[in-house]
């Protein structure tokens, strides 16, 4: 073993840290499976015709049209026509016979072509038509490489979604989540756990293990630019906060103070983390940590459990959970300090706030007649809407367009993920092929 050469426990810890990080190189096979459990009956009939291929070789890297159709179907708002029911498969506008599509009931038609301008250069050209009027709604060229071909196809779906709904699509975003696989250990009755922090595309493809540890991993949080992720790791048998660069996999321990180091949340400008620390006195309070200067600023004090901070959209306020009034409720404090104000009043348990992208709502874990469910709280009207129907739902996270939330729930004894539209009408279940999945965090929009 390499451990033989390690002189000090510190060095040993460093090597361990490296081993943990290097698993970055292994793309995981455990993909997520997504299924719509509740859609809208007004889903728009759309036809996405297989794209033509005008490059060298037998075929493009992936079937872009299939990826686009799957994305649109998954949103719950579109009902793509089955390919085998298509009367024609045009790849240029001139070949489209609108009457055929009208007869089949498709209201929108998507056609396209994949070109290959260079050895590893592709271009997805596509057009979107209003079938009833026979008019083009959108025409676009999306560049791609073999490596990002799938992502580029998701971009195409994003653009189509935005054209047809008026809302930017989130098909090219990603999801971070934690998986736990428990296996029998060597000794009889012993249980060995393996915790992984995974990042996958929003459709569950391309999962990559960022960190793997026999000790708990918690609370993944995306940096606003989507390039880094902060999380809590118990790899040294106590809670510590790390920030990891997604591209290089290198990481930095940013808080390992005595007591609890938890609940990291990035400020909108990416310069600070709001965290919950218990420090020497064992009392959990909200702090901000400047990532450049390491300056720590205390925002709350007192004997209450103050944790789970979340920044307002403009960065001026921090929402957090506190049991100051007995049970957990959401409060708000100015990001540069001051007096905290209570925000939630409906129900005995409102915790782990997340701010909607438009700043008008919070998503919380809410006790609904003995069940822990995801709810939104309207900040102006102070009304609560329960969105989920599980018994042990937790960890809500908004999609960056605010249309959907992803959260953790149970299927039997298993931890799975689910999404629900912000109006509660569209639901999906997302499960891993093995083990429990939990603590989903939806990424910001990718840079354009």
């Amino acid at each position: 073993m390499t451990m033989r050469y390690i002189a000090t426990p510190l060095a040993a810890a460093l090597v361990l840290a490296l081993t943990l990080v290097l698993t970055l190189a292994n793309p995981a096979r455990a993909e997520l499976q997504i299924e719509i459990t509740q859609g809208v009956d007004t889903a728009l009939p759309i036809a996405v015709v297989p794209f033509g291929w005008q490059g060298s070789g037998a075929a493009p890297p992936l079937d872009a049209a299939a990826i686009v159709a799957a994305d649109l179907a998954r949103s719950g708002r579109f009902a793509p026509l089955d390919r085998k029911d298509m009367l024609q498969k045009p790849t240029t506008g001139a070949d489209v016979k609108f009457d055929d599509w009208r007869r089949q009931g498709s209201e929108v038609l998507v056609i396209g072509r994949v070109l290959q301008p260079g050895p590893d250069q592709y271009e997805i050209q596509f057009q979107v038509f209003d079938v009833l009027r026979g008019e083009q709604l959108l025409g676009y060229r999306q560049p791609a490489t073999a490596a990002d071909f799938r992502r580029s196809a998701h971009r195409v779906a994003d653009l189509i979604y935005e054209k047809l709904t008026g809302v930017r699509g989130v098909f090219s975003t990603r999801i971070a989540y934690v998986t736990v696989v428990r296996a029998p250990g060597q000794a009889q009755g012993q249980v060995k756990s393996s915790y992984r922090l995974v990042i996958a595309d929003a459709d569950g493809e391309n999962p990559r293990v960022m960190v793997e540890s026999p000790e708990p991993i918690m609370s993944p949080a995306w940096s606003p630019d989507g390039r880094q992720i902060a999380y809590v790791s118990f790899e040294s048998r106590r809670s510590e906060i790390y920030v990891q660069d997604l591209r290089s996999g290198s990481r930095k321990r940013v808080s390992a103070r005595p007591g609890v180091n938890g609940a990291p949340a990035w400020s909108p400008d990416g310069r600070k983390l709001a965290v919950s620390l218990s420090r020497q006195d064992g009392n959990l309070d909200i702090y901000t940590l400047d990532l450049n200067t390491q300056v720590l600023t205390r925002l709350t004090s007192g004997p209450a459990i103050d944790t789970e901070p979340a920044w307002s959209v403009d960065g001026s306020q921090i929402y957090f959970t506190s049991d100051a009034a007995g049970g957990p409720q959401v409060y708000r404090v100015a990001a540069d300090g001051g007096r905290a104000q209570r925000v939630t009043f409906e129900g005995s348990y409102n915790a782990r706030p997340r701010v909607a992208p438009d700043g008008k709502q919070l998503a919380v874990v809410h006790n609904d007649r003995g069940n822990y469910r995801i709810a939104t709280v309207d900040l102006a009207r102070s009304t609560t809407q329960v969105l989920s129907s599980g018994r042990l739902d937790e960890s809500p996270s908004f999609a960056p367009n605010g249309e959907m939330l992803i959260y953790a729930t149970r299927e039997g004894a298993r931890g799975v993920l689910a999404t629900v539209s912000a109006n509660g009408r569209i639901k999906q279940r997302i499960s891993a092929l093995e083990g429990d999945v939990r603590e989903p965090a939806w990424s910001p929009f990718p840079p354009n």
Partner: protein
Amino acid sequence: MKNLKTLAALLVVCLVTACAGPSKSTVDDGAAGAGQGGASSAGMGDGSMGQGGAMGGGGSGALGGPGASQENRIIYFEFDRFDIKPEYNAILQAHARYLSSNPSARVRLEGHADERGSREYNIGLGEKRAQSVRNVLLLQGGVSDQIATVSFGEERPAVIGSDDEAWSLNRRVEIVYGQ
């Protein structure tokens, strides 16, 4: 020292696995006493042995110290609470006495919560529970340097399950000697 660590590790394993069913095993308690070398586990708790109702079910070891049987090393809590129930006074007193008469002894209080509610809030609850136990040990003769706390929240359940029994067994502080 190495023995102690191994012992602590064994105990944790035992806790996690032994609680998997409704009946708790005391298999490792004997080994715990032996590994510790008698000196510490003897002499503890004899006086208070009969008092606390908490230690039913054939706890043959001492009340406090590393030789204490499994049920005398776990303090259970009510939902969303971190105050210590009176039935644990005798156990905690015995652990405090052990710490004060063994200045080199170190104990780690591992706080846990059940799975309900949000995860970081549960880290807070676990920490509060560990702090409650720590405060009692300090009041009764333990020294600050001897007592460390850590909270695992709901991340390391003793029992896998989503019913009242599992939840009540998971809301706990484990008293782990070593280090």
